[in-house]
């Protein structure tokens, strides 16, 4: 019961952070909030018994992605432009989708239900928990599933990361170009200013 209470408090905290990210205009603050968000997420994963996920979320989610976002802000700009009107259509779409999803959750097995199909499947969860120590010999079941039973999945993941690294390098290059040398930029700046005046 205490466990569930801790999770509820942390999850409500996440909702507050998410609304902060929606409302704040300063992008730097939004990036810092998303870092806090990832760290809280890691705490929740620890309470939900997913210690490996918590490690990854703290290192990759709170660390690496915050650094990427800060780097992007350094290369672009920090302030978000004030939007003149609220987007009520977007609000309607989001509310409808959310209502449908909540309707969909009513059929789901409750949180912590050990008897649900996902947790009792004889060839997946139960197989891993009962046989992996004999078949693979690693005490951590998550590691043996990740590196052995689903090894090709992990190989695919590394391919994705490799492709993303190539993509980023080919888009940005290793040396930075000087932006001031571009004559087109002046025209675009003028165009933007004209739009702001209108």
């Amino acid at each position, binding site marked *: 019961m205490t466990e569930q209470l801790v999770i509820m408090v942390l999850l409500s905290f996440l*909702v507050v952070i998410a609304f902060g*990210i*929606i409302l704040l205009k300063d992008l730097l603050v*939004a990036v810092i909030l998303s870092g806090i968000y990832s760290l809280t997420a890691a705490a929740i994963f620890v309470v939900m018994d997913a210690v490996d996920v918590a490690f990854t979320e703290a290192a990759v989610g709170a660390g690496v992605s915050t650094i990427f976002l800060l780097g992007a802000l350094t290369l672009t700009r920090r302030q978000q432009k004030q*939007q003149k009107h609220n987007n009520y259509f977007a609000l309607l779409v989001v509310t409808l989708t959310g209502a449908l999803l909540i309707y969909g*959750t009513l059929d789901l097995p409750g949180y912590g239900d050990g008897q649900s199909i*996902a947790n009792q499947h004889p060839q997946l969860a139960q197989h891993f*928990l009962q046989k992996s120590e004999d078949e693979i010999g690693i005490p951590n079941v998550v590691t043996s599933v990740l590196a052995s039973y689903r090894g090709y999945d992990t190989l695919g993941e590394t391919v994705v990361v490799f492709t993303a690294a190539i993509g980023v390098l080919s888009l*940005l290059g290793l040396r930075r170009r000087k932006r001031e040398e571009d004559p087109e930029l002046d025209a675009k700046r003028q165009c933007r200013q004209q*739009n702001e005046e209108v």
Partner: protein
Amino acid sequence: MKYLALYNYWIVVIIMMAGFYIMIARHNLVKKIIGLGLFQTGIFYFYVSLGKVDGGTAPIFVESLEAQATVYSNPLPHVLILTAIVVGVATMAMGLALIVRIYEKYDSIEEDEIKAIERQHWQENNGEFGISLTAPPTASS
């Protein structure tokens, strides 16, 4: 009591919809990427919540625990989410690199401003669409 067990899923839906709203309603491109991250983490909670077993512990075998009948949480969602986190960061890096390139060419990371620049370019160049990102600046102007 039945609805208390569904509390996690409802929070997941709220977080996902917050990210979704940022993605479709905010014009700032960096903000959109942050919203995409919110949406993704919502799905991570959903998977890990489904794998949780009441009274269970992390699926790691420890010798002192093996004598007792220990209940373990489902390891499979954890593995899937580990992969998803890393892939999510790779997509985010790619998106941010594209945003930096867009900023270099358009001097803006606001969607509506970029659209206005494109529209003006279109009118000035007799319907030729799009500012070339690869051609040298002198050639395209």
